[in-house]
């Protein structure tokens, strides 16, 4: 069975944690001792009902304040699929956490309160899902019990959301009306919304088609490390270990190593359990070549007829993750797949107002959680692809050399 990673985003009051708790509880993925623990804590807090959101609030501070302050990873499986939930906070000051969780997600769950419809936060989360190129978005229109399970209320939200999302680059958007508190349409249908003809949330999660989400066209193999056993049995073995970032590599393929431009053919694709005829993303393999050419970490193997250009001037959509704003002319370390260089932000073209999706060309002061279009100059050429073509080779991070913190995430345009 396959693995599906999805994010959940929504404000504290939207019932997101209750939704996750319900998903896990109804699919029998919460264990007895965990339920007992939540029941005890709910009692201690003086609550009348079992607060399923307590299941997902893991840290002391959170449990005391009753909000989520970090990305929490939850795991569950049904007979159809294994799921990883990246549960992220709803507050704007935790955009960086949402971006983190979203970066490897196949799908985003966006929670909307049926009474309030599309609010600033909905737009922000949707924009981020679109920016991070999450291929599938499920909009959960929650708290339908508080609007009498009205189809009208649901339709209104669907229209509001569709109008907003039309401006964005989102591929697959679906809507599910639900009540996480009472369980309608999360795992089981319930009786309250017979007008709804789509599947439950879980059914959609189990069946959404994800195997075409990787880039299988453009061959990209960033080298992580070189493996040289120097043993008797493998005396001359020189293997390039890494994870296929794009395309399909086959034994016998002609490849080019960048940046050197040296060419060779794939002699074999190795794993400990045997050789493979072909390798595709996200497999981790070791490639040996017919010729002894000099390749090291940071280099990338590609096909001759499909070479990315090495670029030093990058056009990037940047999300600033750090409390300290970027300093003018500051030099950062830029990481792109396994390559590293130093870089500077040379120009800030505009910031995004992610509520209106307007470009703000006058306000160029980047702060934490801002998303801006910038130009970055790197000390050496990086072999990037557009982010909407390949999420692995189209992404970068900036690291502050003074503090070692990851200060920004960038997507190549």
């Amino acid at each position, binding site marked *: 069975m396959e*693995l599906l990673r999805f994010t959940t985003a929504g404000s504290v009051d939207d019932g997101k944690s209750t939704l996750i708790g319900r998903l896990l509880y109804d699919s029998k993925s919460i264990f007895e001792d965990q339920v007992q623990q939540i029941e005890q804590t709910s009692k201690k807090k003086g609550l009348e009902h079992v607060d399923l959101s307590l299941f997902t609030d*893991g*840290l002391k501070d959170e449990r005391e304040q009753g909000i989520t302050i970090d990305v929490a*990873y939850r795991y569950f*499986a049904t007979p159809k699929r294994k799921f990883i939930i990246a549960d992220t906070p709803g507050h704007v000051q935790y955009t960086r956490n949402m971006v983190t969780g979203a970066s490897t997600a196949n799908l985003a769950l966006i929670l909307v309160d049926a009474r309030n419809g599309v609010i600033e936060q909905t737009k922000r989360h949707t924009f981020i899902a679109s920016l991070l190129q999450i291929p599938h978005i499920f909009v959960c229109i929650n708290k339908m019990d508080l609007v009498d399970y009205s189809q009208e209320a649901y339709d209104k939200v669907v229209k509001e959301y569709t109008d907003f999302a039309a401006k964005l680059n989102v591929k697959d958007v679906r809507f599910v009306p639900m009540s996480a508190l009472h369980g309608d349409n999360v795992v089981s249908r319930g009786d309250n919304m017979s007008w709804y003809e789509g599947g439950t949330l879980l059914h959609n999660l189990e069946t959404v088609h994800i195997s075409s989400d990787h880039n299988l066209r453009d061959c990209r193999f960033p080298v992580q490390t070189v493996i040289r056993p120097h043993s008797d049995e493998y005396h001359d073995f020189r293997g390039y270990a890494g994870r296929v970032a794009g395309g399909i590599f086959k034994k016998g393929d002609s490849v080019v190593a960048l940046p050197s431009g040296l060419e060779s053919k794939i002699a074999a694709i190795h*794993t400990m359990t045997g050789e493979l005829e072909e390798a595709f993303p996200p*497999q*981790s393999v070791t490639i040996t070549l017919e010729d002894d050419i000099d390749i090291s970490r940071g280099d990338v193997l590609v096909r001759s007829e499909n070479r990315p250009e090495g670029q030093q001037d990058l056009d990037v959509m940047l999300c600033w993750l750090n409390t300290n704003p970027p300093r003018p002319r500051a030099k950062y370390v830029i990481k792109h797949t396994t390559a590293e260089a130093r870089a500077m932000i040379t120009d800030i073209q505009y910031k995004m107002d992610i509520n209106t999706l307007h470009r703000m060309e006058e306000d160029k002061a980047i702060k934490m959680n801002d998303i801006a279009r910038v130009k970055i100059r790197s000390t050496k050429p990086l072999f990037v692809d557009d982010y909407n073509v390949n999420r692995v080779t189209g992404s970068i*991070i900036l690291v502050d050399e003074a503090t*070692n913190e990851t200060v920004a995430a960038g997507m190549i345009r």
Partner: protein
Amino acid sequence: MSNYSLTHLEELEAEAIYVIREVYAQFDNPAILFSGGKDSIVVTHLARKAFWPAKIPFPLVHIDTGHNFPETMEFRDNLIKEMGANLVVGSVQQSIDEGAVVEETGMNASRNALQTTTLLDTIEFNNFDACMGGARRDEEKARAKERFFSHRDDFGQWDPKNQRPELWNLFNGKKRMGEHFRVFPISNWTEMDVWQYILKENIAIPELYFAKERNVIWRNGSWLPVSEFITLKDTDEPQMKMVRFRTLGDITITGGQESDADTLEKIIQEVASSRQTERGNREDDKRSESAMEDRKRQGYF
């Protein structure tokens, strides 16, 4: 045209191998924290795959509390020999003898918390700048928030508020002198994933995981093995029971469950229908609601 998709185990394996290779590439002196439990055994197996056909280019580190199951020690020694690996042992007994830590006393005494000091001392003494462990995010509340690359300050401490954002698969292992990282390649694996992988790859594990007649007493909701390291109350009644252990901590704190699962397939079936979490019988986790978090803040695994 073939279907270019991976099963969940294949995808998790590829991710873990990627992380292990990143550690080797980014750090000068990495190590694998090896407890002899199934998770660290799986991490070791993944490391073998990551560097094959070369040997694992760094040592296994065992923090020996002196309270291990004898079977775990035997298993460890056999594995080291078979792999031709380097083993570094940090001894809690030595830390006690040197006065670095004080042994707990009383009915519920355990050396679990003392490990942290020995671990940090071992890391410092050997200059390890990255330690890989088999911790998983599904194990416990405080681990749900962990990153793959978990930064520890120069006191070895973990501050949840300071964890770096981890985007895509770009891991930032940069640090100051004296700081180190803990890395968890199987962060996204669940207990079930680990068992299914062990079955699929035919990985050898200590026989403690399999049901066998063992001499135990009933304490705090599970069957604690009778050993020279625990204090028996007058009311304790040692008896022989078909028991297996779902998780292996020290012999003093690991409770077993009654079971007849004496093969991997049976264990998997039992885990699948289990109503209790894996660490539910860990006395160390039960000490308080935030037991794991508090220990991590101090530098625990």
